[in-house]
């Protein structure tokens, strides 16, 4: 799992060149994939080119950065649920413990 860290102290998920908070260059760091659910939704009306339903989960990574990812099903999704983020078929998925 990768995040980007800035000298200003902010951390954002994934690779990002410039810090969204101060505009300075960011450094990529590797970390564990532990995550906690902040909120989630099941989307039924999807844009052209997508198949419904899509299970969207906004998680907080262990370093505090947030990441929007998907879930393979809606079973047991709840706010505060702990799990991990996996990367599969070019997508990030939340998998609950």
């Amino acid at each position: 799992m990768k995040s980007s860290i800035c000298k200003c102290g902010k951390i954002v998920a994934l690779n990002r060149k410039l810090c969204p908070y101060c505009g300075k260059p960011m450094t990529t760091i590797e970390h564990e994939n532990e995550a906690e659910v902040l909120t989630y939704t099941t989307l039924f009306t999807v844009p052209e080119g997508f198949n419904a339903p899509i299970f969207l989960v906004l998680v907080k990574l262990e370093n505090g950065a947030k990441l929007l990812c998907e879930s393979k099903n809606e079973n047991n999704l709840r706010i505060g649920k702990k799990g991990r983020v996996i990367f599969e078929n070019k997508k990030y998925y939340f998998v609950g413990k």
Partner: protein
Amino acid sequence: MAGVYISDIGMTKFGRRKESLQNLMYEAYANSISGQEPQFDAVFVGCMNPDEFVGDSNLATLIVDHLGLYQKPSVRIDNAPASGSAAFEQAFFSVASGHYKNVLVLAGEKMSNLPTTKTTRILSKLIDKYERSTGATMPALAALVTRRYMHEYGLGREELAQAAVKNHHNGTLNPYAQFQKEITVEEVLKSKMISDPLRLYDCASISDGACAVILTSNKTDVKVTGIGHATDFLSLQYRDSLTSFNATKIAAKRAYEMAKKKPKDIDVAEVHDAFTILEIVNPEDLGFYKPGEGVTALINGKTELSGELPINTSGGLKARGHPVGATGLAQICEIVWQLRGEAEKRQVKANIGLCHNIGGFVNNNIVTILENC
């Protein structure tokens, strides 16, 4: 700085309209003319995405050509669903600077001619590229916020539906509204699920329509006293809070400071209720209510027509309809009608009004304050 006042205003009925975008803008313009044909120095056209919705670009020239206003300077302003208020803002600066004395602001959008999945895809381009790669839509982001707000403040699903019920009631009193029928909480809760927990009746509609406003340096009965504008991160992932939006808070602070007013001075407000949750969060971010108390204000009737602070007397985006580029200017029209005592069956007592228009997913917001003078 020159004082900037509002003279003539007009709009079309919003809804699924057969007319072209330029004919809707002409209709709004024609509806605005109250006496002799006005003279103005420039035309500001607010429209979010004519390129994809109707297949036209160079809209500023198309409109002056269509309205017989050629030779006048004209520019199109795209600021996502805050295009209408952004065009108004730029027009305001042009008069305040003294460069122009009278300017025409037109704002409109035509969206209903495309299939919903295509419209949804176009609107999803407002979202950060990574976030939309998941399939996330505007309603999906609003659903994420809704669920988090329910968790933090104990908002109930039936309580949330009250926002749609209230605005549909106001819409029944507005001849320009797309929807002029009452709805019940039960109907909201039975409507099609869009993105859990948000249902169809929690979301503003796909709509067509246009508005026209003339700004002038000549004194009239309504003055523009405050404009505040602020942005936030494109991505939801970078926001500090999921239940409050900085772009609204900062834009409001700037507008209040410019107008030398406080939230308690506002008599009537149009806020950007693209989703029912925003009818609760926006009044909190605008300083009308404390965090978590927007819902109490709603269910206790404080924001209905007879309440202490009527919100969305027009029916809001929910019932008036949401032709994205037109919405910001439609809010201005409603507040001007309220201040002039011309809002007919939905009239409230007001001398100072506020408009709050959101661009993107709550990340490019404009707050405008208008006053009787």
